[in-house]
């Protein structure tokens, strides 16, 4: 790339996230220098001291790529999602939380009131006899202080603004990010809008080296600590719930390589409209029993189906939240 060619402008923002996605960008190590050679980072709260007002003042469409990680949980997240959408040419939902709601999305099993009650009144380490809760506005001598408004529901990024691409993972594999970035830098023809990039179109099991047989005949499921994994056989065949059969590949089956079951952070394959629904279908079909009582007993061993099958995708699923 010639020096005379204008550098790209890039922004990275976190919504309701753990910070892991931002760190995954740092995990590209020295490749970060390649990134900086091609792009100016104009906004990145974890690493740069750029103010929101600086971003708000940028001209529309002036940022070439924005990686938005984290779900939308409060008014601050939503505001920044809208601002960054307006300022960016390409808005990428980066990581499971922006893609499908992720771990913060599990809060959709509850609601604002129950969460606040637990956190500010009932938790074991809380001492709050006056039951004080955070206020959104406080008057002090210097003026009014504001806190964001905490929403009742967690949303995926595309439930708030238009998203160009999805780069899944919890966090996305750094190498995939570099690939996608270089594709943008080199002007490679981009896939159709709305595509999942930086991941495979094949299932996890396709990359998984463990031995698999046609007939599963699982009698019951175990939690990983209840059995000793033989290190070779398909985890599901050993009765350890692995979400590989419905999950998109691309991460290098890292969890299974590390002898832990896949938990589905890369999200569903293209033709699956509800990740957990598909996974329930797969898992139930692998069971052996035929008697109703036997089947019920086996199904009982799937502890917390909703939390297991929608661990990363509750806000992006069909039912979206628990009915309260």
């Amino acid at each position: 790339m010639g020096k005379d060619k204008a550098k790209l402008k890039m922004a990275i923002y976190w919504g309701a996230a753990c910070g892991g996605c931002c760190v995954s960008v740092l995990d590209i190590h020295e490749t970060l220098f390649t990134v900086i050679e091609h792009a100016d980072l104009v906004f990145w709260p974890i690493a740069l001291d750029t103010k929101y007002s600086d971003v708000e003042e940028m001209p529309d469409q002036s940022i070439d790529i924005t990686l938005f990680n984290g779900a939308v949980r409060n008014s601050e997240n939503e505001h920044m999602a809208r601002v960054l959408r307006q300022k960016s040419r390409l808005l990428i939902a980066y990581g499971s939380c922006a893609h499908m709601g992720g771990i913060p999305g599990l809060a959709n099993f509850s609601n604002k009131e129950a969460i606040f009650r637990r956190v500010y009144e009932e938790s074991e380490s809380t001492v709050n006899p006056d039951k004080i809760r955070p206020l959104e506005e406080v008057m002090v001598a210097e003026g009014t202080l504001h806190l964001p408004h905490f929403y009742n529901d967690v949303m995926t990024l595309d439930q708030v603004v238009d998203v160009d691409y999805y780069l899944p993972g919890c966090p996305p594999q750094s190498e995939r990010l570099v690939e996608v970035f270089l594709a943008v830098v080199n002007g490679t023809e981009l896939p159709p809008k709305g595509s999942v990039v930086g991941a495979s179109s094949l299932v996890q099991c396709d990359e998984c080296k463990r031995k698999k047989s046609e007939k599963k005949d699982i009698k019951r499921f175990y939690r990983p600590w209840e059995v000793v994994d033989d290190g070779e056989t398909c985890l599901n065949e050993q009765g350890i719930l692995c979400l590989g059969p419905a999950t998109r590949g691309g991460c290098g089956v890292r969890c299974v390589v590390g002898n832990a079951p896949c938990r589905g952070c890369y999200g569903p394959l293209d033709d699956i409209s509800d990740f957990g629904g598909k996974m329930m279908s797969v898992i139930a079909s692998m069971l052996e029993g035929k008697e109703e009582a036997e089947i019920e007993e086996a199904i009982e061993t799937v502890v917390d189906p909703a939390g297991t099958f929608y661990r990363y995708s509750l806000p992006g699923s069909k039912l979206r939240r628990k009915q309260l």
Partner: protein
Amino acid sequence: MQSIEQNNEQWSPRIVAFFCNWCTYTASDLAGVSRLRYAPSTRVIRVMCSGRIEPTFILEAFIKGADGVLIGGCHPGDCHYSEGNYKCLRRFHLLQRYIVEMGIEKERLRLEWISASEGKRLQEVVNEMTDTLRQLGPSKIKEVAETIVK
């Protein structure tokens, strides 16, 4: 046509019914030709086997506004494809546990084995389920799935 008139007076549940081609769908046909009168609450979707029914189909029916979903298949041992109904049974139990966790009444999802000759049984099941749903009231699933509370 007394039953239809009665239904017009009050809210009537909508049941999406997935019936297997070989047994329950034929039973509903039999119920029809036998002129067995039952609640007009089902919208039947014919599938080749109850084993074809994906949990996602059922979730989709709920978020499109079904008040209940009824699955009808062949009796155990009678499946035209040998084991499809067992697969259906396993999925049904898992899905039912899931919907209960999501705060949905488990009565909104029902599985029944109804063979081709059991037109009478079909009539009973549909009437029973319609009554149960009437007691539960309209489903809020669609509304909850569509509304985001800020």
